[in-house]
């Protein structure tokens, strides 16, 4: 690349003979010694640490890795096992499923929402806060064209971007001549099922479980990345001259009309959806069930009813929808893989250490003295 282009071997200076190595050729001035400096750097003698992979360093390293990983793995495994998690698929693929009809009869234009409800039983009570997720499968939120189809300036409340969204939003940039707010495929495909949870107590009455819809988005998303144009005052005016996304039933300033802190671009359901998933099967935080008192479990064991307002079609592309309830520990949700992986890797290291030790002792014919074949 840097093509050390050779200059032609001719050079005027050299013709002059100034270059000739003989000292004193030019008389005066040639006495200056051209001896290179005696610095450690130039003589390549910088002090250096020269590690060698000897049995004395490698084998202990293996044992140490093993000894660190196995306890961590056990700890992770136990923690993960203590986490309660419940998952229910409500897509309605199966004809026996309660939501079958909703799933089949879906049309974008229907004005009356289709609802269905599913029964399930929690075998064990869920202590502490419970997190409610919705999960989608086979939904490619990580597709390149999908990921880039948004305008962060617009979402950050930039008034010019609001009126003139980025080209990346195509084909969801304008609708009927008006700019779409929020524009792009991500916003357009906002998950809009509504989930409600009812506990069926021992005498058969349905008790609605309060679901908290705030605090589900990242702090930076909520407070930095997403902002309404003109602040949060009078969103209807702020969004005037824009159009709602094609798939949406209502404009963005009506996402949560009751709470101005959760409306427009800073609606947390919207923010959560806009944080695209890395994999085609993903879950997103939907609601939080706060623990009420220290004595009763947040979700006692027993029968529950999940009521779904079925708005979001996934069957067309063979997608699935799930509802997940989970408790949380210091390491997050249930994650058995990590613990098992740590235990496995730790054991392998330990085992390798033993094997290498045996090999080293059996085949090592090098004693400490210098044995340099030549």
């Amino acid at each position, binding site marked *: 690349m840097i093509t050390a282009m050779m200059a032609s071997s001719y050079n005027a200076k050299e013709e002059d003979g100034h270059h000739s190595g003989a000292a004193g050729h030019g008389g005066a001035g040639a006495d200056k010694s051209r001896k290179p400096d005696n610095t450690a750097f130039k003589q390549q003698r*910088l002090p250096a640490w020269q590690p060698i992979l000897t049995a004395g360093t490698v084998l202990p390293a293996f044992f140490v890795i093993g000894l660190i990983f196995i306890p961590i793995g056990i700890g992770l495994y136990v923690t993960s096992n203590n986490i309660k998690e419940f998952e229910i698929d409500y897509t309605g693929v199966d004809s026996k499923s309660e939501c079958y009809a909703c799933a089949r009869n879906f049309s974008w234009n229907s004005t009356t929402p289709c609802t269905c409800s599913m029964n399930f039983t929690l075998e064990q009570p869920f202590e502490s806060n419970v997190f409610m997720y919705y999960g989608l499968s086979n939904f490619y939120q990580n597709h390149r064209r999908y990921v880039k189809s948004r305008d962060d300036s617009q979402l950050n409340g930039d008034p010019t971007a609001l009126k003139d969204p980025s080209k990346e939003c195509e084909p969801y940039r304008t609708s009927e001549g008006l700019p779409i707010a929020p524009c792009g495929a991500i916003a357009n495909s906002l998950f809009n099922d509504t989930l409600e949870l009812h506990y069926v107590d021992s005498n058969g009455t349905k008790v609605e479980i309060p679901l908290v819809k705030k605090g589900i988005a990242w702090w930076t998303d909520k407070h930095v990345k997403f902002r309404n144009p003109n602040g949060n005052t009078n969103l209807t005016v702020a969004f005037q001259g824009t159009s709602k996304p094609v798939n949406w039933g209502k404009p963005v300033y009506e996402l949560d009309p009751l709470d101005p802190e959760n409306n427009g671009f800073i609606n947390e359901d919207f923010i959560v959806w806009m944080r695209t998933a890395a994999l085609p099967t993903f879950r997103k935080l939907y609601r939080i069930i706060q623990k009420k008192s220290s004595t009763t479990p947040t979700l006692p064991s027993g029968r529950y009813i999940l009521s779904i307002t079925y708005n979001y079609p996934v069957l067309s592309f063979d997608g699935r929808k799930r509802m997940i309830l989970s408790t949380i520990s210091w390491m997050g*949700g249930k994650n058995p893989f990590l613990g098992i992986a740590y235990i496995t890797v730790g054991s392998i290291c330990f085992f390798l250490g033993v094997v290498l030790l045996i090999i080293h002792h059996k085949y090592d014919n090098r004693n400490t003295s210098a044995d340099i074949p030549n």
Partner: protein
Amino acid sequence: MFRNRPPPEEERRVRANDREYNEKFQYASNCITTSKYNIITFLPVNLFEQFQEVANTYFLFLLILQLIPQISSLSWFTTIVPLALVLSITAIKDATDDYFRHKSDNQVNNRQSQVLIRGSIQKEKWMNVRVGDIIKLENNQFVAADLLLLSSSEPHGLCYIETAELDGETNMKVRQSVSVTCELGDPNNLAAFNGEVVCEPPNNKLDRFCGTLYWKDRKYSLTNQNMLLRGCVLRNTEFCYGLVIFAGPDTKLMQNSGRTKFKRTSIDRLMNTLVLWIFCFLVCMGMILAVGNAVWEREVGSLFQSYLPWDPPVDSFIFSAFLSFWSYVIILNTVVPISLYVSVEVIRLGHSYFINWDRQMFCSQCNTAAEARTTTLNEELGQVEYIFSDKTGTLTQNIMTFNKCSINGQTYGEATDPLGPQPKKLDFTPFNSLADPNFCFYDDTLLESVKVGDCCTHEFFRLLSLCHTVMSEEKSEGELVYKAQSPDEGALVTAARNFGFVFRSRTPGTISTTEMGRPVTYALLAILDFNNIRKRMSVIVRNPEGRIRLYCKGADTMLLERLHPSNQDLMNVTSDHLNEYAADGLRTLALAYRDLSEEQWETWSERQRSAERASDCREERLAAVYEEIEQDMMLLGATAIEDKLQEGVPETIAVLSLANIKVWVLTGDKQETAVNIGYSCKMLTDDMAEVFIISGNTVQCVRQELRAARQRMVELSQSREEGKEVFAEACFLTPDLRGGHREVTEEEEKVEQQPPSPVSSVSPASPAPPLNLMDNISGEFGLVINGHSLAHALEADMEAEFVSTACACKAVICCRVTPLQKAQVVELIKKHKRAVTLAVGDGANDISMIKSAHIGVGISGQEGNQAVLASDYSFSQFRFLQRLLLVHGRWSYLRMCRFLCYFFYKNFAFTMVHFWFGFFCGFSAQTVYDQYFITLYNIVYTSLPVLAMGIFDQDVPDDRSLEYPKLYEPGQLNLLFNKKEFFICIAQGIYTSVVLFFVPYAVLSDATQSSGEPLADYQTFAVTTATALVIVVSVQIALDTGYWTIINHVFIWGSLGLYFSIMLALHSQTLFRIFPNQFHFVGTAQSTLLQPVVWLTIALATAICVVPVLTFRFLKLDLRPQLSDTVRYTQLVRLKKRKLAGRSAGERGWRGASTMSEGRLGARSGSRRSGYAFAHQEGFGELITSGKNMRLSSLVLGSFGSKHSSSWIDTLRRKKHPPTPTCTSGDCSPAPSSICASVPPLSNSSSMMGGSQDTPIEEESDTATVQSVAVSLSPETNGAPAAPQGPGHPHSTAPSSAAERSQAGPPAGWTLSLGAVQEALFGWRNTAPCTNSASSGPT
């Protein structure tokens, strides 16, 4: 440069003083341009040049692809930032280079010269000189253009020039004008001169010119003798006038300085191949993913359109797949990042600087440091297999010293009694005020003989002072400077000067001398000049008394047969002396005179004149006439001149040969000299099984000789192997065989590996051993071939035979070769052996060889600097070659290989993650990482640590790699980076990418933050994978770095720190607020890196990536350690031991003492030869005295007929293929392997003498040294290998006294020269003759 050239000239017509006429032909002016650009053309031309590089164009293509929105999977700046960086760095470099070229051009073009314009001399700039101008040159001026010499201040239009810049020869040359023009002395006459020259068009032949001068209706033929070429310097001539024939770019100098052929290293070529492969790999990956995309879009994507419609122009999955292919080409292009090429150049530049900075390659005498003139070849220095060396000026100093002489049957200058004190240098000043103080002679008997007035001695020196072609220059009274055509002649005249026969000055007709303080002037009647056929020169002089005498000096073969019969007795004695001298490697000349009567002279000179006038066969006629008079001469004696070897040449050659580098000497010298030098620099040794001489004159003859040689080699190597087996059995019987046992099995393996191969197909007709058998010839052979035979051997059908024969030999000497043949030999090896060749030389005649070899090394010595200008590396001493190759070359190779391995690894690990991710993102060319990470990964996050490794890494320190030349072998065998290694790196990279993708995938897909938000969002995933990647590759570089200097620490830790800080900055709110559309990742780093699960994931991925690597490395190191590993390990152990020092001091001390004495013995017995080691004849005295040079006769020396006389260097050489299992007593460190520990003395003979007394730090290695020498003795004491250890050993008494002697030696510590070693040796030999005989032992 870009001027339209007229069609090539057929012939050149130049009319003097007629610019109008000459302008018709549009000859080039004398302005030279070596620069490439000017201010306006720089940008376009430079960019055009840069985009001729495939890689640059490739990246430009990628950049264009990225501008298409449907394809663009990365932002445009991921490519343009590195590309712009690379282009601008290169442009700046080119611009600086060109600036200096402009400057030097200007300097040359603006030099003043005196031009004759309209009858007056005017000052003109060089660039304004035109063809046809007449210019005036003064003494010591550079010749401005190629001139036809018209007249000069000297009589006969003679002038003297020095052509050092042109052809590298330092001696002065004489040029003479055509007789008719030499009278045109003054400017007026010259202004009227209107002759026309018709000559050949411009060419680059320095020694040929052919033209005709037409003037006043007459024709005069012109030759090179009439030409002054640009670049020459006028000497010893007050002024001269010349007619410009060729100017500027047409001059022979400029015609000779074409662009140097751009040399590429084998790593370069391999790298290019690999890059091509990677590119194919990239296309394959792209295809796979495109097919995946097609399937996905058809099966899933088309259904998913309600949420994600296709882009407007995309209407089918096929088209989508097509676009996706290009998108993936963009994403995956980082497998060959642009930074690869930049980094390689930077590393090479660093290595070049280290070569320039090396103090140990600095010659203080000539104040020259080594110089890497090419920065692109460094790693090739670590792979050299063949060295082609010039002799004169390279192996030898090209300094001739008058060493010995034989006068009237009496030899002078013999080495004095070795037992006596150091002979004193003779002081000539009291005797002769004109003596040259630098002249050294040690035999005062000769001076006595001169003083006494012995007439033969006087005549001898008179001859030397008269019979020569030396020019003298006497600046002030008594301050004589001789300018000799050849250094030997200068040495002879200087000798005569010091012995009282001072040559003062000469005129064409007289020679003035001062004989014993009395000025004498001789009339010079004739010079019968030297040529290669006559091999002698004579002068005929008339002394003041009027006697005419012919003095002749020449090769003894020529001279002795032209002597008067009465000289028979003297001739016998003298030729004995001559043989002795020749055997000592001295250059000899015989001297004779003849008295001529007036009539003889008259008749002869008449015949000579007529011969001189003859137009045809002038040369032959003259030679015949000369022959007539050079008869019946009276022998005076003979001289012996020593051709001094450069410092450290034998040691260097020994070390190089231990490093498995074959050294070939290609010299223009005659066979005898070449062979002598071969012996003196240890290329040829007495240990060699046989030295073959190929000197046939016909094709058949040469073929025959080559075949015979091969036949013989096979026979000898077979018998040798049988011998080995016998010995091996014997060794089994001896007890105490721990070390020996292993050796033997190895030997047996070797034997088994060498079953007679089936008849080769190369030369089926050949009765000689098939060529492929030649590959595994064991035993050491030498080959000497002369230029004549070489010409035949280089013919197409003989090539293969010659190569196979020559390559089976350890040493090859080609003598009497032309510069072209030198290049041909190099090309031959390049072609047939595919080995890396290095040519080293100092003269203009080596340029062709230097240019055609892979690496050209110029010795900046005496013969100008033409070779240096053509070379890739230059330094001033041959011995620096070992450091250049074994230290710098080895390191460069190692570093470059490690760099490349790691570089490909890290980019595959980085890029292939996208491939795996493709399967989960609908093959949509979504990147895993943030675009900024992709941009910065190669140029910021991972570039510096790998650069630091590529520049600073060392596996073993420099002194160790000189100590164990075997460490050089991996480079020759190309072991460290080849296709296999490349695939291993790639595999490792792909493995890492799999781990880096699937571990986060498995962990994060269902994981949530501790606050409940899922972790599987794209940005968290990206940050986790990127962080894991950076950490894994940093751990990997930490494992790869073997030499952690402070810089490595700073770079590795710094890169990690930089990664985190840059990431946090890019994900910060501040940047997002300014450019909300550019920094999507706001807050991701903070929120991700606070999650314990993320760190657990990174740790897990790192462990899974590193543990297998660690395991394999450890196993490799533990079970199959490379030599370098062992050396490293030994050093570690040594360091540890030093810490524990003192504990076992007593025991070691004893061991050291006992073995040390043997070390002394080994050293002594080896260097008993003379300083230049020609005493290898010792023991063959009869052969010498009978006049046969036994070296030339093929002496069959069996491998076990080992000679105690071999020097320690020989011993070392022999160790390379240990002829005997070296079984030593078990208690010491295994000596057989540490033999090489004795090599450091090679570079510094002092340490051999030095020993452990004053260097306790080197204690360990010293014992090793000493032991190894002890081992080296064991073949001599053959039958009883285990014997020589105890203190009661017969050797140990005498050497201790020698040790005392040497300690009591010069106070300057141990900086003894080889000569001092030798001297001490002589001393020792005297004190312990019995030991000597004992050590010779059973042979």
